């Protein structure tokens, strides 16, 4: 039964990824990308990595995808935004991802309803991860924080609105 759930979720993930790389519109692709990430999150749950599944949904499908939405919305300013929004809200656009995510929801319901019976693999809970993270991997945590700081500084440097940079860039 867990194997059936695994196959269904894998099919959803692969289908969503294929749809993502074949969409012409970036927002439609983003919708399918979120669906693919959610499917992989369900897979993590099936594999017994509950902490990673939660992080996948919160950070990948939540925080990182919000960044993409912000940038796509920032780049689409103009007169045609209104008609674009009207096109985006047509049922044909969101009905596919909604149905597939409904499949994922039913799967999660089955998994939670069956309790431990539906899980496979060896469960590694958040306590074990935390103990290992702040024990032998302490230096790696510090390195990750340095990487995030560098990313923050870089994103601020690239993303700040500067009039001078736009002017010099226009002439090139």
């Amino acid at each position, binding site marked *: 039964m*867990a194997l059936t759930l*695994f196959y269904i979720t894998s099919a959803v993930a692969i289908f969503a990824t294929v749809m993502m*790389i074949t969409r012409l519109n970036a927002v439609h692709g983003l919708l399918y990308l979120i669906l693919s990430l959610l499917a992989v999150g369900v897979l993590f749950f099936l594999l*017994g990595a509950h902490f990673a599944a939660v992080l996948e949904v919160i950070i990948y499908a939540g925080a990182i995808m919000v960044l993409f939405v912000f940038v796509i919305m920032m780049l689409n300013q103009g007169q045609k935004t209104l008609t674009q929004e009207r096109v985006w809200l047509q049922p044909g656009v969101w009905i596919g991802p909604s149905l597939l995510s409904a499949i994922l929801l039913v799967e999660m319901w089955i998994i939670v309803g069956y309790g431990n019976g539906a899980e496979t693999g060896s469960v590694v809970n958040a306590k074990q991860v935390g103990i290992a993270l702040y024990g032998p991997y302490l230096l790696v945590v510090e390195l*990750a924080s340095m990487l995030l700081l560098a990313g923050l500084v870089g994103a601020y440097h690239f993303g700040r609105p500067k009039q001078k940079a736009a002017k010099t860039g226009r002439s090139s």
Partner: protein
Amino acid sequence: MSGIPMVQGLLLSVVLFVLGLVGVLVRRNLIMILMSLEVMLNATGLAFIVAGSRWGEADGQIMFLLILTLAAAEVGVGLGLALQIFRRWHTLDADVLTGMKG
């Protein structure tokens, strides 16, 4: 360890990785390239989680955490670069950006 065989999990991760790679190579929109990169990183994380689940160790999830951190930093810098490119050239086509001033 019962249920999901390790080989099938790794196969799924390979398929997702190749799909992301195809997306990076085929698409020319910078946003779509970044999204395909996300798919590739996610597939790598899936491989680590499968291995960690196979041997019941926490190391797989820790590697996934590191990949998550890397993806967050990469997306922040990459989207900042995409914004800057759009401001300068008013396009997101990667083929326009082939020339360097040097």
